[in-house]
């Protein structure tokens, strides 16, 4: 049930999973532009030889295959999609706004991601407290920029319009929430501390494009709990 659209990406395949936020980024982008693609589901516990061949450096999903040429790394794939299919643009047009979008995407996928993982997986009270603080600080930096970056609109692309940073922040607004719940934390849902972020999450998750392209809460919570159990973060 891939979305057929007016644009056909000839010979377009996406290798991904139905759990990976990075894989979903690409699905959102392609569906936003109405581009038809074939979804090839990978089993990350048993990676296909094709995946290993096409992404030998990182061995990860997503991998986009377009006209027999392959690309990996979700942020790079997003820019490729935006440059190849120019309608319904994802990145801002203005060079300074583009620079800010790229800067914050890097921050979200590096500093915020690292802080999120530490918060989810740290063991021991002192370590947990420190990790929570780092996560709170990193999220606060994002919170502080949201009004400026969205220019007061509901999403980074505009009112009800999805843009690059919406796609990038998706994992924080949805996936991390379930990780938090499974780990017994409560960082991102505080609307008194992060009013702009919480408001953005609400608008983002309401979009039909997003709502219809997410792992179910039940599935994500189940998987998050399994991961937490396995690493000893929680006990049965």
């Amino acid at each position, binding site marked *: 049930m891939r979305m057929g659209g007016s644009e056909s990406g000839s010979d377009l395949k996406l290798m991904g999973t139905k759990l990976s936020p990075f894989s979903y980024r690409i699905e959102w982008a392609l569906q936003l532009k109405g581009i038809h693609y074939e979804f090839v589901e990978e089993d990350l516990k048993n990676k296909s030889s094709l995946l290993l061949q096409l992404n030998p450096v990182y061995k990860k999903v997503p991998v986009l295959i377009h006209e027999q*040429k392959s*690309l990996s790394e979700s942020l*790079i794939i997003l820019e490729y999609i935006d440059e190849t299919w120019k309608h319904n643009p994802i990145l801002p047009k203005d*060079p300074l706004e*583009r*620079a800010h979008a790229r800067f914050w995407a890097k921050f979200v996928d590096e500093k915020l991601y690292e802080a999120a993982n530490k918060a989810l997986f740290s063991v021991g009270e002192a370590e947990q407290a420190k990790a929570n603080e780092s996560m709170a600080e990193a999220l606060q*930096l994002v919170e502080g920029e949201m009004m400026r970056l969205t220019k007061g609109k509901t999403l980074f692309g505009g009112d009800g319009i999805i843009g690059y940073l919406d796609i990038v922040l998706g994992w924080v607004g949805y996936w991390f929430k379930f990780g938090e719940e499974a780990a017994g934390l409560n960082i991102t849902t505080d609307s008194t501390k992060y009013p702009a972020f919480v408001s953005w999450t609400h608008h983002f998750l309401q979009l039909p494009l997003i709502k219809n392209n997410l792992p179910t809460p039940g599935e994500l919570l189940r998987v998050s709990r399994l991961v937490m159990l396995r690493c000893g973060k929680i006990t049965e």
Partner: protein
Amino acid sequence: MAATTTSDVRLIGAWPSPFVMRARIALNIKSVDYEFLQEQLGSKSDLLLKSNPVHKKIPVLIHSDRPICESLVIVQYIDDVWASGPSILPSDPYDCAIARFWAAYIDDKWFPSLSGIARAQGEEAKKAAIEQVVEGLVLLEDAFLKCGKGKAFFGGDTIGYLDIALGCYLGWIRVTEKMNNMKLLDEAKTPNLVTWADKFCGDGSVKDVMPETDKLAEFAKVLMAKFRAPPPN
């Protein structure tokens, strides 16, 4: 009140930094005049802290009083703004994506392995660290052949994004080679990169901003002395 001429384009940086060099090379390619604001080792200027409050790092490009941070973001910004000058990123979306991919690899995986050599304790660890760097360079040699398509640079006939992304580290590569008495860029394993390195360093946009190896080696010694813990008594 005396009139102050502040350049519309300012770059906060320091001469030893490969990241700063990226921005300088990009500005040179576009023939953009800029004011270079040199930071001092060990202290961060108020302007830097104000312009990059998130990371507090150089380089920061300040264009019409608006700061842009992160070296590769800056290079892309320069390419976007001064669009009439020679292109830095490839025009073909796929070639562009490949250039971005390898630039990200260089920063995320390869450069940490280079820093790993200085941090390695003992002969075995050092050897392993060196091997890792060379393995990465072999990957980049292959990328060079695919991207450059037989031409002088990753970008083709002229220096491009990926040349800048890797080339900025050449000074530090040479310092590491000198201090450890070995070759990282080796004719046997990475012959094309060896040739490329010389061409890159000799390029008009690069040669005035690439630090001399000896000067950089001296700086490295100062840096290591500053951060090394004093030996136990």
